[in-house]
């Protein structure tokens, strides 16, 4: 087995001027790795360049095997990614280890086309997925309501949602941040979009967008959502014929019997939730277990634990939990977690806080596609506030929480036949 390229690369460079190429490069993802997040970008780039790339599930933290060429070596050195040159014989040894353990080698065949659902205005909070993709140098396209309703989601393999409020209530910041210029922008842009696209108000627009997203998943798309987008997407789908928006959002009060009228058969992950009826509390329902903005109900942060899945039998959930840490400190979002009693029985729990009435990370199928929800806003800023500076990932290159996001980006690249679950 080759040693880490730092040593190799320097010796090669000094002898020959350029690094020499071997059979493959192993990108370890255990504690030997010096920049886990950029390693995903290296793997993505290898797939995009058409080289034979494999994701070695559960092998040294979920390592990658990529073709050894000058481009990959240069990129690894520039980004500070630890890689090791491995010969064909080394690869055979690795395969032997994988064969005898709870591990698997999943070929990555097609670099997924990534879309991030994001408004054209700049809200005063960061978006963990945008930060992660940008830092890993993985290309993506921004889409918003006009693109979604215009059928453009079909152009993408992977869609990400983050802090969006699909109930159309502006994250319920309307009252607490009344008068703030960024909120005025948000209201104006959303109302303009609703008018342009022919909807009577913003909640109606967002419900239509939610239904399109549901159809996208049903048709084979991969959806990954974090923070408020998870819970509000579920609520918007369940509330297709019910007014769950506060009066300030659509001009009419919320239906007092909304809870009883919600149609959970239309939702993807949740059931039997109760909506938060106070328009001044930035919380949406009891889907979220932590209620960070709900005084009296707010729960303290703990840590969540990733499940161990069988790499050979359940490669999809196994891919989604590849990490060099089994236990990860929790982090708040308006939706931090998912209460167990509001989960559908078919949901796969990927991570939970043991003993708590909530879970952190869930996954499931709808039609030919899949959805994955991760609670919380920013894994490296556990109490991200409105107006806080965005997280600088160069200070957290091995963030285990951000790794979970990037697992989701690469998972659609896996060869379809491997997606058994």
């Amino acid at each position, binding site marked *: 087995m080759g040693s880490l390229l*730092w040593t190799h*690369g*320097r010796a090669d*460079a000094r002898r020959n001027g350029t690094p020499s190429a071997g059979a493959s490069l192993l990108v370890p993802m255990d504690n030997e790795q010096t920049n886990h997040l950029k390693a995903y970008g290296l793997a993505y780039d290898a797939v995009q360049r058409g080289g034979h790339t494999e994701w070695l599930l559960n092998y040294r933290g979920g390592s990658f095997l990529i073709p050894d060429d000058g481009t990959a070596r*240069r990129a690894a*050195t*520039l*980004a*500070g990614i630890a890689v090791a040159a491995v010969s064909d014989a080394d690869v055979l040894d690795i395969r032997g280890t994988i064969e005898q353990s709870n591990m698997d080698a999943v070929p990555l065949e097609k670099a997924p086309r990534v879309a991030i659902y994001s408004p054209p205005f700049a809200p005063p909070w*960061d978006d963990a997925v945008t*930060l992660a993709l*940008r*830092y890993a*140098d993985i290309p993506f396209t921004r889409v918003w309501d006009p693109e979604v309703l215009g059928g453009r989601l079909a152009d993408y393999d992977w869609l990400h949602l983050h802090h969006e409020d699909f109930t159309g209530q502006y994250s319920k910041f*309307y*009252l*607490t941040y*009344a*008068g*703030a*210029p960024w909120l*005025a922008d948000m209201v104006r842009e959303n109302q303009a979009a609703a008018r342009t696209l022919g909807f009577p108000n913003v909640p109606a627009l967002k419900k239509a967008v939610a239904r399109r997203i549901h159809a996208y998943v049903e048709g084979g798309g991969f959806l990954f959502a974090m923070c408020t987008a998870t819970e509000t997407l579920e609520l918007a789908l369940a509330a297709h014929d019910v007014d769950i928006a*506060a*009066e*300030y*959002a659509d001009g009419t*009060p919320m239906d*007092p*019997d909304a809870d009883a009228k919600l149609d959970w058969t239309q939702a993807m992950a949740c059931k039997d939730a109760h909506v938060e*009826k*106070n*328009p*001044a*509390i*930035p919380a949406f329902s009891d889907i979220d277990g932590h209620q960070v*903005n709900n*005084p*009296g*109900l707010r729960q303290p942060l703990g840590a969540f634990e990733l499940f161990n899945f069988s790499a050979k039998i359940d490669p999809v959930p196994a891919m989604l939990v590849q990490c060099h840490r089994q236990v990860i400190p929790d982090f708040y979002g308006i939706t931090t977690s998912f209460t167990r009693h509001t989960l559908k029985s078919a949901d796969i729990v990927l991570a939970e806080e043991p003993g708590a009435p909530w879970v952190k990370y869930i996954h499931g199928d709808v039609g030919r596609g899949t959805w994955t929800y991760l609670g919380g806003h920013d894994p490296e800023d556990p109490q991200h506030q409105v107006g806080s*500076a*965005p*997280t*600088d*990932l*160069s200070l957290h290159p091995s963030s285990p929480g951000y790794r979970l996001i990037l697992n989701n980006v690469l998972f659609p690249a896996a060869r379809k036949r491997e997606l058994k679950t």
Partner: protein
Amino acid sequence: MRAARLLVGLLALAAAAPVRAAGQEILIRAMDLEQVGAWNEAGALYRQVLVDEPTNAAALLGLERVSVQPAQRDTVLAYAARALAANPAAQAAYAVELRVLRAMGRDSLAAVALARWVAADSGSSAPYREWARISFKAGRVQDARDAVLLARQRLRDRAALAPEMAQVDAAGGDWSGAAGEWRAAVAAQPVYAEAAGFGLRQAPAEMHGAVIGTLTGSGPGMAAGRRVAADLLLGWNEPGRAWTLLRGALPAADSERAVVLRTFAERARSLDGPGAQRAAAEAYDLLAAALAPEDAGQIRIESARAYAAAGDTADARRVLRSLSGDPAADDVTRSAAAAAMIELLVRERNPEAAERTLAGAGTKLPGIERERLARVVARGWLQIGALDRAERAVAADSSLAGDEVRGWVALYRGRLADAKRLLRGAGATVGDRSRAPARAETVALLDAVDRDTLPELGSALLLAARGDSLHASRALVTVARGLPDSGATPEAEPALLSWAARFAAAGGDSAGAEALWREVAERFGSSNAAPAAELALARALAARGDLKAAVQRLEAMILAHPESALVPEARRELDRLRALVPNS
């Protein structure tokens, strides 16, 4: 978050409300259950209290809080009605009734309840305030405005509910109107000053002028408005204007004036920039005049320090001199004043006077403080190149901190081996830690030069110590160019040229600095100094907008020196230039 504060406020109010001894224990249990989210159980206990004490406001408010299901609201209404039957003046019950009816969407019944409350308490603004707040929370801004206007008309008070109207105006983008309302509110009740500042601070930049204009215009409440304006201007980085406004709007009473001045001075002192420091200094100065002499000493010292931080050493000296001649000042205050004066004189590059002051303070200063100030004086001598005087100033100081001073003296005299030994001995923790990096860098330079003596290098570095960066840079280049003939190590020339580049940049010669860094990076590419030169060059290129060349430099540096300690910094810079991380 405002909502959170509101709820905490309600709980505090509830806890403070008087309760009968019999019901108190049940009430406390109910609140505990509420805190842990057992709302149904808490509701049952609140109801239990209300059966015996129908007008218990804490229990009624608690029942309202935990009754979030629509089906429970009728129950709350029933208890509110019972409370009103027992006491038609129970304000909390009226408020609960209003909120519940509005939450149920029964607007017409809510209007009747409002009328009933107004009739029961016709001279009070409370019913209108509650109605306005409920409307505002529901996003019905016009309803909230109407409620305030109705209150003003009926109560014949044009300033009634000014804080509520200010929020309504701000929500509608009328920041000038909001400023006028807050001015009236603070004039009536100064306790609103902080809320006014908080509410108006969020005004967009283009509205700042209108807000300040409204707050400071002549008419009733002008002084209150100006105090709010001063607070805002401090936050909006206009400290000079803020102080001018505040000085003209100080309360007449000494005690109130002292509070206003202290608050302003402390806030300004915590801000960066000479303007804020000067405003702080003047406010402290005035505050000292408002205090009893025995309380004013420390305030004057703070004033002097703020003047010095603002670069106004003349005023700083004036304040300190007045203190040293003040018969009311005690020994501790005088010693502190003497120390501040010595630091000030050194800052003014007048070590002679600093030394005299130190000698004058004599035994009044504790021994350790006297030694520390002697080193301050010694550094003052170093700043002007008086090496003998610096050495004499610490002659009696055998500490490692004293060795540090002797190390610099040796360096500037060109006794490099002695300098290296003394500076290295001082380590990283002696004296002011902010000087430790400079010591480490100097020791690294001396390692690279590897000579026991080199007077030309000492002279060149002394120029830099005296603040003459450009001449220091040129002198270092001369030393560097002359080295190969005198048999120096291969690391010496690039190290000296790197230092010369740094001094050139500090002296404003960015082109000269760039040329020197380029020379180190290209002519001495395998030297220890090369990675730092590449990094500095890339930063210089980026600073003048040539991002492409900067990125190329950084990439070249990382690929050529992958094991340099500077590589993580270069990678971070590369990420920043490529916009892969936020530009923070």
